[in-house]
């Protein structure tokens, strides 16, 4: 495997997150050169990733201007893409990876993979979606369907490429001069701010995110800083990029502290050195968080608004994620953040905070990958059970329904009352899906037998079955899988397609049995575990 091309047409956060996949690819194919296609404006994110030998770019802004202005011929856009593509096609690729999984990257993959292998999703030359493996289907059709994905995207990518997780600090390139400067300067601050000879931990606080719904309000940041300043174990510092809008935010916050706070302003070239030399960071959902993960910098992530932490949250074990709601008071965020830092640094005598509205998770790993273990909230309730059971289902049964695997989660289901409620509801849902499934099978057979009402009955029952794709339950997963399989049926004759659907309906039946098997296994835990889990088990 000499030349691998990874197509990532997303923004900085996804570019940095890709660093994990690149490391896995490099580990799997040690002698391969890995190149990346990004949009022009995000190239500087890819430049600092290790394992990238070259970067091809597409000028997104130019193409958008051309495509959306009547003064420019579409021929200009067609020509531009054709010329970009010719450059890429001049290399003999052994593998192309569709990382960003959107339409444009999928079209690109479809063209480039005509002469090489691919991973992810592509269109065949009949414009029908094809998946490189079942995990590509799961990623494209199941994990993206639910805000509360049971698997982190990093794990899904690893399963798609067939690689292993790589942990380490060298997934990002750092500049030796910047490293030395950051090391010296931050150590000076530690020494200066030490109390009774004990140096504080330097905590970088990322103050800005481009998405307001994910941002911390100024008073939330100020409350956090005040709390940390009162704690001799910590010294907070503001982190921002060298842009006017971010400086404004930093200055505004600093005015509340008589301009005594230190602001570290750094671009993507210098930021890795800063993150390596800080003791921890506190950040909303920003690209900085993904960079910190690549560098193994301890982190408390504050997830707000549309931030999908289960899909794209921090992945380094030992980090914390605070999922705040609109009702969460800023005092609660700062109290809980301090508590999380105390646990990261094993500080004794930590006061357990009053947690009323937010959910706190600790990042861990298990055999399925990144796992978010509840610390406050979301413990032993239906949402958490569904998260765990989904992991068991997808990780253990969906890919290989005949596999007999032991449940990996047992003590997590120890609340008998909630567990029973969960199992009953899920089994009821499975019963409803099974009814719709049997009705579809019956009418499918009627169609095959040429019975007059067959077509109408089939459409009706098929619609009822697919309606379960929208219902939040364990049963949703096999139905989504089924739908994806049906949507990607090749262009066969009507008879062949009806037969193919019958085959997939039987597969769905087997998958539903897998769901029952998982639920029965969970029910069977009853005899083994008798003590309920305690809250805040750190």
């Amino acid at each position: 495997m000499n030349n691998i091309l990874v197509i990532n047409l997303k923004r900085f956060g996804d570019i940095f997150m890709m660093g994990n996949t690149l490391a896995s690819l490099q580990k799997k194919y040690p002698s391969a050169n890995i190149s990346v296609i990004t949009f022009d404006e995000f190239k500087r994110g890819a430049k600092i990733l290790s394992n990238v030998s070259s970067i091809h770019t597409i000028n997104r802004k130019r193409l958008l201007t051309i495509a959306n202005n009547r003064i420019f011929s579409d021929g200009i856009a067609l020509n531009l893409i054709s010329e970009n593509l010719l450059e890429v096609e001049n290399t003999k690729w052994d593998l192309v990876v569709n990382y960003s999984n959107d339409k444009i990257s999928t079209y690109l993959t479809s063209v480039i993979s005509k002469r090489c292998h691919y991973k992810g999703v592509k269109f065949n030359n009949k414009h029908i979606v094809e998946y490189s493996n079942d995990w590509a289907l799961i990623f494209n059709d199941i994990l993206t369907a639910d805000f509360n994905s049971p698997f982190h995207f990093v794990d899904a990518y690893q399963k798609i490429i067939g690689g292993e997780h790589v942990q380490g600090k060298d997934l990002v390139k750092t500049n030796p001069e910047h490293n030395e400067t950051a090391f010296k300067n931050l150590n000076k601050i530690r020494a200066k701010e030490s109390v009774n000879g004990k140096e504080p931990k330097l905590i970088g606080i990322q103050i800005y995110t481009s998405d307001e719904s994910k941002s911390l309000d100024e008073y939330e940041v100020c409350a956090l800083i005040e709390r940390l300043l009162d704690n001799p174990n910590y010294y907070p510092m503001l982190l921002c990029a060298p842009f006017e809008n971010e400086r404004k935010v930093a200055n505004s916050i600093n005015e509340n502290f008589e301009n005594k706070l230190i602001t570290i302003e750094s671009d993507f070239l210098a930021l890795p050195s800063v993150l390596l030399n800080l003791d921890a960071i506190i950040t909303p959902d920003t690209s900085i968080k993904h960079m910190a993960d690549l560098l193994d910098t301890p982190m408390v992530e504050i997830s707000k608004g549309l931030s999908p932490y289960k899909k794209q949250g921090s992945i380094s074990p030992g980090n914390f994620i605070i999922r705040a709601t609109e009702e969460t008071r800023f005092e609660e965020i700062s109290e809980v953040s301090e508590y999380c830092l105390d646990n990261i640094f094993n500080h004794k005598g930590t006061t357990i905070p009053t947690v009323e509205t937010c959910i706190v998770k600790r990042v861990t790993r298990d055999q399925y990958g990144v796992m978010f273990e509840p610390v406050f909230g979301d413990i032993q309730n239906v949402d958490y059970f569904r998260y765990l059971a989904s992991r068991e289902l997808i990780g253990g049964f969906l890919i290989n329904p005949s596999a007999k695997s032991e449940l990996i989660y047992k003590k997590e289901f120890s609340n008998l009352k909630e567990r029973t409620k969960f199992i009953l509801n899920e089994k009821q849902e499975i019963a409803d899906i099974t009814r719709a499934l049997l009705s579809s099978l019956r009418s499918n057979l009627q169609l095959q037998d040429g019975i007059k009402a067959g077509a109408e009955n089939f459409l009706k029952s098929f619609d009822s079955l697919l309606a379960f794709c929208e219902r939040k339950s364990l049963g949703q997963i096999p139905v989504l899988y089924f739908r994806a399989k049906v949507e990607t049926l090749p262009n066969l004759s009507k008879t062949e397609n009806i037969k193919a659907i019958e085959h997939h309906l039987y597969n769905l039946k087997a998958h539903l049995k897998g769901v029952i098997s998982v639920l029965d296994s969970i029910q069977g835990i009853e005899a083994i575990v008798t003590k309920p889990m305690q809250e805040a088990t750190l």
Partner: protein
Amino acid sequence: MSLPVISDYYIKDSKSGKPIPVVNDVHLHSAYNPEKEAQAFVDKHIEDLKKSNKVLVLGLGFGYHLSQILYHLRREFDSNFTVWVVEPNMSVYLDWRELFSADQETNLNIVAGVDVEELYKEKEFQTFLLDKPKLIAHPASFNLYQEYFKSFLTFSTSDFSEDIADYIHDSVFKNYILETFKGQTFDKTINTIQTKEKLTREDFIFLMVDEFKKQGEIGEAHE
């Protein structure tokens, strides 16, 4: 849009001694002091000129306003700026060049006496427009050649495949468009592609452009 009809054109001296063109009885600059008039006019655009090093000027006249624009751009950006001027009247342009020994400025491009449709086919001009230059219209020229400049500002390129193919450099791709999608608009081409039995590389490129169209013009990238 064809070029404006010029029924009458002569040069006269202003009160300050500077020459000014008179086209179809319209004085294109002040009959008293064209330089002072130009300074006052461009002063209104100073803040915009500080923000953009790419400027498109509609109307040349004898370039008094252009001199002011170049002066401010040099102050702000040194030599790092580009200016294009569109002047429909070739005679005025040629006289300007002769009278002022002009056209030496390396950052300046002048397109004179060119039909609007042909102008938009000019590749360098297209590249310049893609950078979204600041637009400054010389009022007297704009009013005189209103039809021409309005057609310039509201120009809509042809989306028929034969015209689209004009912009394709790769002969294989060009021939493919001409042979496969003859007489079709871009949208009709996309519909054809979506119902084809077998898709080619070129078809996927069309689908990519269609996808960019659906995204609309999105703002600055962050994060």
